[in-house]
């Protein structure tokens, strides 16, 4: 693409660095910002982005994204929470919060152990997790980590490390998805679902 303006070119370059944004989308975004009212664009876009970059924090307890030193969830629930839910990323916190099924606190690891990608246990928030799990108040640690090979390594590793804390260690159930049909489930999922089948309770319906 050839540009008549260097300012435009720089803006397009910047937008196209965002994940999932190509040059054409970047150009459309930049053109939108130029066309609309200047002050409105500043309040709508420039200020929030500037605020986000300058002021965003990571919760010093759970490593979730936060406006303050301690995130909302930790502030509201920490003093009465008996369970810690361990997740890979902040997006997983959002996903679990959306289910409205969980009332405990979280711990964001920041990834899974994979020396192949240069991620060792030291690169993840593991020490702080063990510290938190040792508090008398905590009764259970849920390892809500994806069941990939690296995820399972991380689960095994954490359960070894958490042994001394004397808490109950659980992981998410693996099985048939809601609305799914058995014949299309892969053998491993189906086999596992059979092995870890649950008792049918009328009250749950």
């Amino acid at each position, binding site marked *: 693409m050839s540009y008549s303006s260097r300012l435009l070119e720089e803006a397009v370059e910047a937008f196209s660095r965002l994940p999932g944004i190509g040059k054409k989308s970047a150009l459309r975004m930049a053109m939108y910002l130029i066309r609309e009212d200047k002050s409105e664009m500043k309040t709508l876009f420039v200020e929030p982005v500037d605020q986000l970059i300058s002021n965003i924090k990571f919760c010093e307890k759970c490593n979730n994204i936060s406006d303050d030193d301690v995130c909302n969830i930790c502030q509201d629930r920490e003093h009465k929470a008996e369970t810690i839910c361990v997740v890979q990323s902040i997006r997983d916190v959002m996903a679990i919060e959306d289910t409205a099924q969980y009332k405990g606190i979280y711990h964001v690891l920041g990834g899974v152990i*994979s*020396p*192949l990608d*240069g991620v060792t246990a*030291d690169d993840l928030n593991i020490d702080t997790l063990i510290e938190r799990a040792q508090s008398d108040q905590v009764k259970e640690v849920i390892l809500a980590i994806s069941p990939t*090979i690296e995820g399972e*390594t991380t689960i095994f*590793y954490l359960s*070894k490390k958490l042994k001394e804390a004397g808490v109950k260690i659980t992981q998410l159930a693996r099985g048939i998805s809601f609305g799914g049909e058995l014949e299309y489930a892969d053998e491993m999922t189906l086999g596992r679902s059979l092995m870890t089948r649950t008792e049918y309770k009328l009250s749950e319906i």
Partner: protein
Amino acid sequence: MAKLDFDKKINLLYGKNGSGKTNLLDAIHYMSLAKSYFSMTDKMLIKEGEEYLRLTGKIQHDGNIQSIIIKYPLGQRKTIEVQKNRLNNSSELVGVLPVVFIAPDDISIVNGGSKERRDFVNRILCQSNPQYLRQLIRYNRVLTQKSSLLKSGKIDYTLLDTYNADLISTGSYIHACRKNFISPFIDFLQQNYADISDGAEQIDIQYITQYDEADIKNAYENILREEVYSKRVLIGTHKDDFDFIINNKRLKKYGSQGQIKSFLYALRIAEYTYIETQLGKKPILILDDFFEKLDRSRLSHLIEMINKDTFEQIFLSDTELDRSKTLFDDRGIDYQAFRVIEGQIASD
């Protein structure tokens, strides 16, 4: 692009060297295992200047028709559909269309390193048992992780223990499968070898492994310090080998050219029989450049097996039509011939 209707029994592809016969045979292999027989990457399989590869196959078996579609657009993920259902993983394709491929460079199984022989055994076991393939993929992935950890020099014993526990559990499964495989396989092998040789030689395969189920945990623990020191993985089923034996000696070292060729041929037919017994269905047999590769006794053994209906669908390639034509016509064997010229193929 080509659309071909193959004969349900014998298909003979003929054409000059470099005309594309092997490519077509490899396409059938690709449809079976989602990869090339000739360890080429998917990228290398796309014709120069083109942006994707696409393979569509309809397989008719016992009155059922199954369709397989494989698409690989350059730089994107390969997708595989069986009966319009998209597979999550290419490993799920394995076993749908079992295949045995006999190619001219087979000799590396005897002369090459242990990896060649492990690959040979793995290909048989993966096609006969989907669980084996999954455990093997997992084993290799965890092994790479352990190896990266050792290389990084950042030693974390809890993590090494974690990897070892995983490797012991998947490795034990792989080891058990290989152990159970070897004895029935040797029976098939010896039978085939006796059929094509004068029957004087004694042949055998020895499974070489450091694996001792009873003591495996200790073995992993005892070698751990040395692994950390040398920054390398020193133990596991990935170091297994299979020794080919003739008259109590190693075939690689003491076998004559003729003995090696007979052994290789017997090995491939045993592969066929083993997969057939395990799956309860006959694999597709592919013989690349078969006339060049097989001498008189092996050719007549092959013909005899064809006459006995040992195989179902066969794909053969040859540089000349006449000699193969004579071979089949003289024995009253029906076949369908396909002419291959510069990548174009047409039935006669």
